[in-house]
């Protein structure tokens, strides 16, 4: 085992005491970090919030139990946007994580700490969580592989909830195979999570080397457009070409409601978040604002939640509360649910009527941006998710695979997103592995800091 490099990029929030190395299991001795919103009993589960700064969970997430049983060496928790709300890891109560390719830039988010830790070689694999793109986008910005499984494929028990109908736990790794192996371990039904599907877990690994001859890969042309950074479009086109050359049949596909995904997502996710975060009230655990004898209950709530939550979390709680309030419910939340159904139908049509096996799109409209660049403009930050949130609303599996670089003096990685059929991760991983192998510069692809 190599000694992990120093964390100069603030990817790790807490390092766990080293455990006795396991010799058994599929992940024996593999260094794995977990996002700070996944409960462990090894340290603090803070979700990068002041609210849970000292919170120790009495139980561990099902995914953590499964990793430990597979022999993984849990090294610590990774930095993130508070409660998963953000796309840059700047909204952490414990400072931003920096991108190992260019430390003036963000790693993406909200699983920025996990992506950066893998890119910098601090962890071999890191677990992230993806609500609207929080695994895929930082993986793309950090030049690593990020897999969001089908909703219901992996237990959410022990994941600090952001938006329950969207939240997925998934792996970030240096290659498709590492992600496939980690998914194999963490997937499967769980009596503690009623939304975790009771379906058998297929073998995620044994199709990785199978050629993709005859597989139909859809391209959403409208997503390769002038609003994207030119390198994003170029990388996307190059990836499509590699798919074609590897034997895939490339066809154009339309997703008519894709443009409404961001609007629907930013109603549904905050609505659920406003409810999920109501429990942080200062009564039972976590931060509680100091109060004097004359404080009322409402004052205690107000001060606790104003001081305990960061500005982005407060913004989303307000948004979500408004969207659910009487008189606005039908116009906002209910309508967003209808859009969500339509988006799901778009994908059903693409996969079933057009017989597609996977769909390829950009992950985000540009490469990693500079720290602070989008802090003042939440809308710009929300648009970072425009190609990923639709997939989340549809509950489908998707993977972000490195596929190219910008041609800046300090080149930045760019990934492409592959979207699969529900519960068909093996085919998705097979296409991803093919694409990964077909990129000739894959081997010289390394970040500036951290790699040993």
């Amino acid at each position, binding site marked *: 085992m190599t000694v992990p490099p120093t964390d100069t990029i603030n990817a790790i929030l807490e390092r766990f005491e080293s455990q006795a190395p396991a010799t058994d299991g599929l992940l024996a001795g593999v260094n794995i970090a977990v996002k700070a*919103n*996944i*409960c462990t009993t090894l340290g603090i*589960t803070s*979700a990068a919030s002041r609210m*849970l700064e000292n*919170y120790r*969970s*009495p*139980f561990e*997430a099902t995914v953590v139990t499964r990793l430990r049983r597979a022999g993984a060496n849990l090294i610590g928790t990774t930095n993130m946007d508070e409660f998963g709300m953000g796309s840059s890891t700047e909204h952490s109560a414990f400072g931003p994580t920096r991108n190992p390719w260019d430390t003036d830039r963000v790693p993406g988010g909200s699983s920025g700490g996990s992506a950066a830790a893998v890119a910098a070689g601090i962890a071999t694999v890191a677990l992230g969580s993806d609500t609207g793109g929080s695994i895929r986008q930082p993986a793309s910005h950090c030049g690593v592989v990020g897999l969001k499984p089908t909703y219901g494929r992996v237990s*959410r*028990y*022990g*994941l*600090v*909830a952001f*938006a*329950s*109908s969207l939240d997925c736990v998934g792996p970030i790794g240096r290659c498709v195979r590492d992600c496939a192996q980690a998914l194999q371990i963490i997937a499967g039904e769980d*009596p*503690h*999570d*009623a*939304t975790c599907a009771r379906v058998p877990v297929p073998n995620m690994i044994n199709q990785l080397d199978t050629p993709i001859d005859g597989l139909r890969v859809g391209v959403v042309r409208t997503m390769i457009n002038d609003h994207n950074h030119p390198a994003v479009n170029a990388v996307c086109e190059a990836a499509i070409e590699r798919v074609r050359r590897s034997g895939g049949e490339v066809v154009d596909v339309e997703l008519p409601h894709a443009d409404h995904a961001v609007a629907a997502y930013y109603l549904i996710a905050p*609505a*659920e978040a406003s*409810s999920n975060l*109501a*429990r942080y*009230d200062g*009564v*039972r*655990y976590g931060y509680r604002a100091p109060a004097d*004898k004359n404080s009322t*209950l409402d004052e205690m*709530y107000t001060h606790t939640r104003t001081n305990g939550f960061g500005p982005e979390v407060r913004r989303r709680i307000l948004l979500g*509360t408004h969207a*659910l*309030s*009487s008189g606005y*419910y039908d116009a906002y*939340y209910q309508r967003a649910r209808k859009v969500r159904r339509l988006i799901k139908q778009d994908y059903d049509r693409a996969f079933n009527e057009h017989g597609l096996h996977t769909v390829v799109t950009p992950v985000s409209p540009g490469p990693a941006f500079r720290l602070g660049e989008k802090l003042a403009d939440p809308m710009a930050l929300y648009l970072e998710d425009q190609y990923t949130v639709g997939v989340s609303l549809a509950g489908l599996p998707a993977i972000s695979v490195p596929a190219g670089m910008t041609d800046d003096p300090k080149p930045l990685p760019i990934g492409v997103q592959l979207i699969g059929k529900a519960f068909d991760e093996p085919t998705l991983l097979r296409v991803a592995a093919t694409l990964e192998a077909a990129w000739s510069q894959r081997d010289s692809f390394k970040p500036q800091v951290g790699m040993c």
Partner: protein
Amino acid sequence: MTSASIIASELIIGLEVHIELASATKVFSAAGNPAQFGTTESAPNTLIDAVVLALPGSLPVMTRESIESSMLVGRAMGCQVGGTTSWDRKSYMYPDLPKGYQISQYDRPVCGKGSMEVFPEDALGVVDLESPRGIRIQRAHLEEDAGKLLHEAPGGHALDGSIVDYNRAGTPLLEIVTEPDFRTADEVVGFARQLRLLVRHLGVSACIMQEGQIRFEPNINMRLTLDDGRVIETPIVEVKNLNSFRSVRGAIDYEAATQPKRWVCDQQEHARGTKTTRGWDPDKNCTTVQRSKEDAHDYRYFPEPDLPPVHIDAAWVARVEERLVESPMVRMRRWVTEYGLDSRGTLALLDEPDACAYFDAVVEASQAMGAHNAGSQAGRLLLQSGARLANERSVRLDELGATPERVAELVKLRADGAVSAQSADRIFELLCEEHEVDAASIAQREGLLLVRDDAAIDAWIEQVMHENPAIVEQIMGGKVQAVGRLVGGVMKLSGGSADAAEVKRRMLERMQP
């Protein structure tokens, strides 16, 4: 402003009932349930787990028992059960509500429309079995209870703030909502009591009133007819959290007396947003304002994403229906009409399903032995002295120790006039101790068998009548109740060995004009 006056008024009442189900666990987790049968009070905050406390990362999971108990109560009320039922979050913040929302059911409850036959019960507890009312059930849904906020420490010590006990949080709560079909307090109290009996007999909740395991919330308003021909409705008052029949009646009586006066003062009529919430003050016998329309909650209901909908098919409903039991009111009607028992007297017995079964077993065995008037004789024996004895020993009737067969033998002795009513009580008490001995042997041993020598009885009667000519004259003149004194005289002469009822019958026979 009008100066019209009220010439007639009618109450309109709908009822919401919350029942804590006695399932083995909380509704959405494996933590222990304080409403489980036989649970003695647990130390505060011991029936909790990560789900109950809403720890980060915890998730609710549906428990089958809570759903099935709800289905059973629903079917017993004739409700539509089946199809898809789903969960919603009802948001409000309060320290006793760990998640900041309650998991409830908004538009797809477990139980849909139904109807229950209700017998009005008056203030003295007399049930009117002649005029049942059909009360429509709007729905019954399953939700979770909240914890308890305490403002003083155990033992009544003053506290600097408040403390919370989460033992009750997450207890399964069935909320039954009726249509506004009640017109009198008697109907509401009848429904409340009869629903409680039904639920106890179904075995899904003990419904212990003082523990708040069943709570009533009447929505009360009135239809007033005015002398100018108009008919108006007063604003609805919802009275929260009543956990005794007395307070249900008190709140309704108070509102019935007060709402016409309120209308005279403010002329406010029922309309959207005029509903107020009041509480019952048992000391002052009045309702007091808790919340008015201005600070009504916006609960922001939305579908619970952590729990998938539950699909209830016909086979599942049929399996649950196997647990349906005879309605306690059908039982009461049988006891009252066939056995001639007093409705009020049967209420205590009806409260205990096992004691009911015991009583029915006694009657059945007595009938099998050919006892005449078995139901009435058994009722006389068990509902009075039996009930008193059970009460003294803090056990149920069926737990006193006398087997139904032994008691039936006693009922037979009594029906044959072989023992007096008083002696029967004594023998019953002995039967509870001596399991091996039959009633006749005890009666013999204790010298409690009645003299059946008609000649001797007639001689005593002759003597007593002769000694009390004035009383005899009164009786012959129509004052029949005076016969008691003469019967007493005969009993004295017989040394208590005569059957008083038989003496009375013979005496009156002689004095017939």
